[in-house]
């Protein structure tokens, strides 16, 4: 089972904002929405091509662990809850990055590590000094001391609780090698300086004193100390990983299991590479095999599965010698060759001709059976989602507005946005006319996301609670005023997010204006939905103040099992439009 939670990407734009969904093994999960709604960003973050700024993608998380996670997230954050959340994220999330900020304890540990190295080498020199040249310094003692120092260094280096890394072992080994050469050299020079009073620094001399002139022991010690340091670091990291779960999981190991099919087969294939080269590249990059025979066999299998039969005929062709459908099959073969179990298909058929489209879709579904695949299918075409998807999520401006089974979302849409999207999908049968709901305008700029429900400026059924801002109301009043419907406004200003201040023209009293204002708003509030945001109007000090309803962002609420919708209309049935109160 695949669990995803809160994939969020923010560079300058909040492309995806708090999206959560589950994909179960063997499912076709569809992400639907207009361009720029964050579908592709979400898809890419699932295969690690985009780094989410916050949130987790959980992989193969058991239900029990997920329930635990959910209950922990919902709870007030105390130290134990945070610890438990971190434990779960460490175990199942592959986007989880442990905080690299060091605590004072960690700084102390680092200092201890450096200090231990230095003290160790000093003690080595002290031994040399104490037992006069060569009394104890046979090869065995030198090697033994070196190995003990290596073990200590490796253990300490692997201990700081940052994200453990295989590199730590190499770092420890290098530290050991450097330490056993430079530090004793410096230490023995220091010691002799203290004893004999500032002799000249002769590197070779100092080095020979430190190692007692025992060349054989020195050579063996130099090999064994770094080896011990690296080995111990590896063991410590291994133990920590086995106890902490997937801690330190690498995208490289997941790359084989999570794959992507790109949108445009005309641009995603390198024109200078033959089909064989294109399909075998993932094998080489991921070091699966370097045996040409084995690679060819794997490529042949992938091509055959992708429906390019016989594979020999296609292997040595170049992309320009293939038709659009065949190109997309090559793309699919390149994704299949690593035997992934999860594929993100980003608009895989939108560039293809209708007659070829179906073949590719059928191929994808056959492969699901044959290779036990799970798909995240990204499309703007609700018609495709309808015939393919087990579950559908509709996205708008980086948020999921509705999610459920295809039957729930497409046959019985609840969110006004989904309803509008479905109504404009043309039907191949002109007799099946439906009333099209054509939304006004285009999606807002994600840099400046509307307050409240982010869909309300385009929503055909927006009402009081959707979060109208005073700027929107002022805009609407201005258009009414220029149209001559609402005379008497001299000046208008959005005073704060919930109040619009008006000055009336000389010759009209504010009271008379309020009278007309109420009438006009009442008449037009069904066609100009923004007027619904007006809660009341009153006069003070010769000015008229229009007060707005408070709005909030709707949360995803589960209506039926598995069907969640984020809309105020659904979560709290529209209250009867109450009369304007002064």
């Amino acid at each position: 089972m695949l669990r995803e939670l809160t994939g969020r990407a923010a560079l300058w734009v909040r492309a995806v904002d708090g999206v959560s969904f589950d994909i179960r093994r063997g499912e076709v999960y569809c992400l639907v929405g207009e361009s720029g709604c964050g579908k592709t960003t979400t898809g890419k973050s699932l295969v690690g091509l985009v780094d989410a700024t916050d949130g987790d993608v959980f992989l193969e998380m058991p239900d029990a662990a997920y329930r635990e996670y959910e209950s922990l997230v919902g709870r007030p954050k105390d130290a134990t809850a945070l610890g438990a959340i971190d434990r779960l994220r460490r175990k199942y999330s592959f986007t989880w990055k442990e905080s690299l900020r060091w605590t004072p304890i960690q700084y102390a540990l680092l200092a201890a590590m450096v200090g231990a190295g230095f003290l160790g080498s000093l003690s080595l020199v002290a031994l040399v000094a104490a037992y006069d040249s060569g009394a104890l310094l046979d090869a065995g003692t030198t090697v033994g001391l070196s190995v003990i120092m290596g073990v200590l260094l490796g253990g300490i280096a692997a201990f700081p609780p940052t994200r453990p890394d295989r590199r730590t072992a190499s770092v420890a080994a290098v530290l050991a090698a450097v330490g056993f050469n430079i530090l004793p050299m410096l230490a023995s020079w220091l010691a002799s300086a203290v004893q004999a009073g500032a002799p000249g620094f002769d590197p070779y001399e100092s080095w020979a004193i430190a190692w007692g002139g025992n060349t054989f022991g020195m050579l063996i010690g130099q090999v064994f100390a770094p080896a011990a340091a690296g080995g111990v670091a590896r063991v410590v990291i291994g133990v920590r990983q086995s106890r902490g779960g997937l801690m330190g999981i690498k995208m490289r190991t997941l790359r084989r299991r999570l794959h992507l099919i790109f949108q445009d087969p005309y641009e995603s294939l390198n024109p200078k590479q033959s089909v064989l080269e294109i399909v075998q590249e993932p094998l080489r990059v991921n070091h699966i095999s370097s045996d040409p025979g084995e690679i060819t066999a794997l490529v042949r299998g992938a091509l055959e599965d992708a429906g390019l039969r016989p594979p020999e005929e296609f292997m040595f062709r170049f992309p320009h010698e293939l038709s659009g459908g065949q190109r997309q099959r090559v793309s699919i073969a390149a994704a299949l060759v690593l035997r992934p179990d999860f594929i993100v298909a980003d608009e895989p058929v939108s560039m293809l001709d209708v007659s070829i489209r179906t073949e590719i879709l059928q191929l994808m579904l056959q492969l699901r059976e044959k290779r036990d695949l799970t798909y995240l299918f990204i499309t703007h075409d609700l018609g495709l989602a309808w015939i393919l998807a087990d579950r559908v999520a509709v996205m708008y401006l980086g948020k999921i507005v509705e999610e459920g089974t295809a039957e729930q979302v497409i046959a019985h849409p609840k969110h006004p946005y989904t309803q509008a999207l479905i109504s404009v999908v043309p039907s191949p049968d002109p007799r099946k006319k439906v009333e099209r709901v054509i939304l006004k305008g285009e999606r807002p700029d994600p840099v400046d996301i509307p307050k409240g429900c982010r869909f309300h400026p385009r929503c055909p059924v927006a009402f009081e609670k959707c979060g109208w801002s005073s700027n929107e109301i002022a805009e609407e009043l201005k258009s009414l005023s220029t149209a001559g419907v609402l005379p008497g406004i001299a000046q208008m200003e959005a005073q704060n997010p919930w109040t619009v201040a008006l000055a009336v023209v000389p010759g009209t009293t504010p009271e008379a204006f309020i009278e007309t204002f109420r009438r006009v708003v009442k008449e037009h509030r069904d066609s100009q939905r923004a007027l619904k945001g007006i809660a009341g109007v009153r006069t003070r000090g010769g000015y008229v103040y229009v007060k707005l309803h408070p709005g909030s962002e709707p949360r995803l609420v589960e209506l039926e099992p598995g069907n969640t919708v984020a809309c105020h209309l659904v979560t709290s049935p529209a209250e009867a439009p109450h009369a304007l109160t002064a």
Partner: protein
Amino acid sequence: MKSSIHDSGGASLSLLEVKDLVIEYTTQKGTVHAVDGISFALDEGEALGLAGESGCGKTTTALALMRLLPHNGRIIRGSIRFRGKNLVTLSELSIRRIRWKEISIIFQGAMNSLNPIRRIGDQIAEPILLHEGVEKQVARRRAGDLLEVVGINRNRLRDYPHEFSGGMRQRVMIAMALACNPKIVIADEPVTALDVMIQAQILELLERLKRELDLSMILISHDLSVMAETCDRVAIMYAGRMMEYGQTVDIFTGPKHPYTQGLVGAFPDIRGARTIPESIPGAVPSLINPPSGCVFHPRCKFAFDRCTDHIPSPSAVSGRDVACFLYPEVQEVSPRLVEAKL
């Protein structure tokens, strides 16, 4: 054998009448038979859809109507009559009086058809200045009016293309096409790269313009479903030939030609059953060396021996033109014409 065009029958001429048009491109690899004997007619205020997969000659036909074929393209045979005048034989000078003033085109790919370093207003005003010889101010005012017609505020005249979204740019393209009050607007894939909601907006705009300005329209698209709701008649093209031509409702509800059946059937119906639609096996043939006989026979599941060596001519079958030997009424293209081509 003449193809039958029912609606243009009688003495009254259609606004535009294309007859037996043959267009070829000369390339290094050989002659491309891009359009091979197609005929259709367009009446005043009517919308005609040209549908088919990519590479079937839709855009070539559109360019030929404007006489804008690239230098390696040639109209071999046939006539394009606009109000009785044959556009094929007109001189370049006289075609300029018709191009954009009478017939204009919304080019494919709104994203790339506008000049990125010129203001929108200047680009819309350009054809007005060229064709009507009016003052610059007048042309600019007209450009502003046109922007408002397509639903863009006129104070955006001084903006550059990059300041517009894809849908807005498409609207600008439409405004440009309307600049000289043409009779016919050819829309080449007007909604292809756009979002569903923007598609619906643009189609609604085109429908409204057609109604309000009494335009005739030729809508070119690979997406049949776009035509279902906008066109009065549809012509289905395949590999440069006309497969079926008739009223939209007839074609969508009871397609006769196996290719049309395949195309109509390939669309997922969001209001229908959740089944994967059937596909048409194979791919569009090369137009340098098209299959003998009916061009569709290698992909056709009903093909029989007559299909492989005789070319069906579009003939009247239950109220429309169909080019398929499955129907006994269908004649074959006369051997004389076939020979002339060889």
